[in-house]
């Protein structure tokens, strides 16, 4: 555990309590959360209907639990000033391998969970080793990882298939009922909100990583390495090992994310989770993580995913049903957040506030 002094040093928040500027991480996080709440409230007022239905809100979680998980992995890597674009390919590989394992080889559910974790962990370890210990550019290594995973997926099986194993379907169709929140259906009956097991896993992961980033030595090292690896080295931090662990964590989370994806769709397809890595990077950026490293938080990333998906819902609700409108608005939203962050950070730099 880092002492209080260390933590202040790494977070860039000076020790004195009164009248000190907040850190960039906190500022960007606050902006993201407020932007999301404002957006959702506006949607509730303007379009009402679906947006006031709590089930629709929780459906964002149901449909995107996998994205939340892989975005968390990406945030960790990006805080340490790296990038991992292999996560989308890994999801496709994990889903396809698990489906073949369950269907063609009669595997058990626990076996498939183990398989998913092993694939993620294995690829994370290899990529982490190449990037941190052999000092190869992370973009190239994870690009190779993406190509490898996508190619491997089609080698494992080229035909889309659905899972029919009973035990898995029982797990897939299991729903958690949230007491106290619900809506009344057309015939006046009360329908409680249901969430999928994947959502629970995703939320636990978000909280766990948030705790790790904030209160453990590894977490503080991540910020130090991402902020300035040279000074981190001089402080006696093992820069290589910290980077290595960040990629291992990202790989592991991609494995978990792949399994959650499988729990949601129940099918293996070579085109599963196409461009998920780009969505994850976008969510992290909207959530206030900088690609240059040293700034970011997984809570922000969670809200990044929610904002990204709420915008899609708003686009659909406002009648622009053509699929390309969603991509264009996503691009516009990215543009807005990127410019906002850039302007804020430039202003702060001018004022002499360190990140």
């Amino acid at each position, binding site marked *: 555990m880092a002492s209080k002094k260390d933590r202040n040093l790494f977070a860039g928040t000076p020790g004195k309590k009164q009248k000190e500027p907040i850190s960039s991480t906190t500022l960007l996080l606050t902006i993201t959360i407020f932007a999301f709440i404002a957006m959702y409230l506006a949607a509730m007022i303007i379009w009402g209907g679906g947006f006031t239905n709590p089930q629709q809100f929780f459906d964002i979680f149901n449909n995107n639990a996998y994205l939340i998980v892989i975005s968390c992995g990406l945030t960790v890597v990006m805080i340490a000033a790296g990038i991992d674009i292999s996560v989308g390919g890994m999801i496709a590989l994990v889903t396809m391998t698990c489906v073949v394992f369950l269907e063609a080889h009669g595997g058990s559910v626990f076996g498939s969970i183990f398989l998913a974790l092993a694939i993620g962990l294995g690829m994370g370890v290899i990529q982490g080793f190449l990037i941190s210990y052999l*000092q190869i*550019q992370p973009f190239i290594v994870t690009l*190779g990882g993406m190509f490898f995973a*996508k*190619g*491997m997926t089609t*080698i494992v099986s080229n035909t889309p298939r659905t899972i029919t194993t009973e035990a898995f379907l029982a797990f897939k169709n299991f729903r958690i009922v949230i007491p106290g929140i619900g809506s009344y259906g057309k015939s006046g009956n009360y329908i409680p909100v249901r969430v999928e097991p994947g959502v629970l896993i995703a939320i636990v992961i978000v909280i766990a990583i948030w705790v790790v980033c904030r209160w453990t030595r590894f977490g503080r090292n991540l910020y130090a390495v991402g902020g300035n690896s040279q000074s981190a080295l001089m402080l006696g931090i093992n820069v*290589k090992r910290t980077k290595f662990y960040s990629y291992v964590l990202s790989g592991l989370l991609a494995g978990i994310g792949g399994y959650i994806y499988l729990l949601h769709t129940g099918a293996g397809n070579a085109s599963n989770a196409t461009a998920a890595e780009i969505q994850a990077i976008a969510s992290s950026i909207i959530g206030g993580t900088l690609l240059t490293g040293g700034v970011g938080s997984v809570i922000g990333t969670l809200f990044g995913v929610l904002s990204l998906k709420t915008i899609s819902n708003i686009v659909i609700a406002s009648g622009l049903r053509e699929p390309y409108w969603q*991509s264009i608005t996503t691009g516009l939203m990215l543009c807005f957040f990127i410019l906002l962050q850039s302007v804020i950070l430039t202003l702060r730099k001018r004022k002499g506030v360190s990140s």
Partner: protein
Amino acid sequence: MIKALKKLSNSQLAIPLFALFLVIVFNLVRDLSFFSISITTNNYGNTVLSGNIISILNGASELAVLAIAMTLVTSATKGQDISVGAVAAIAGSVFVSVLRGNDITLSVILLAFVTACIVAVLFALFTGMMVAFFNIQPMIASLILFTAGRPIAYWINGGATPTVESPLLGYIGSFIPGIPIPTPILIVIVFGLLVTLALRFTNLGLYIQSVGINERAARLNGINPMLMKLISFMILGVCVAIAGSINVCRIGLINHETILIDIEMDAILAVAIGGNALSGGKFKLSGSVIGAYIIQALTITLYAMKVSSTAVKAYKAIVIIAIVVIGSPVVQKYALQLRDKLFYNKPMKITENN
């Protein structure tokens, strides 16, 4: 001779040339007929050259053009543009829509190309401005067009995949009657010569490199870093328009979903395989161009080995990772020390450097 070899092994081109050499030797061992070039007559009655070598050189044309531009952008901005494929789709759509509005003559094709160029340069400048004025990382800035680019192309095409047909376009996409070499290869040669001449007779290359190496020092020496970054993005726009237009001429239609898909990844790979640092600074265009041909040669070799088109990616990834591992400074240093220990009996020093 030995001196020359030593000089080569220290140069930046050592890795790409070595990789190219490996691909060639592998094919020599595997199947000698891979290199055969035959003279055949195509459907239009032209005598043309055909063979794997020709299809490698021909197929890598778009990639080579984009690799040149990506090298300049990488050098000046210390980052990569991942929107080239999407902007190429926009440029291709503009090219097609101008062609479809008129009777296709040589001047109309020229007009369409210039329009595509202008549009692509404007889109590249959008990314370039975010990079130059707001100091945003190029990859993040280009993420915007990466998500929105192909939808914009879809909108230009009105959701269809319009086709254009004309013997003139066929001349650009495949063969000019009387010349047995595919036209895209000629375009790449001409374009490469132009860029080389431009870099040789102006200070552009030097300025771009100095901005990439140390922006502050460059500014103190009277170079405008913002202008250099914008110029590199403008060149990128022109290259993207060339690549998009060649591809449209080659296949005779524009499909916004599939045109030059994933080419940004290949272009960045070509830059890296060419021995250029993705963190900017010094560059060698010839390295990137060789890198582009290595990638295409790898793909064609795998196709010749009857690997299915979807599985090619996995093998390509393994080879590329192997190349960059060999090229990594840590591995090279270790190998040199191992050589010293084995042949000169020097003790091995394990030095940590971060």
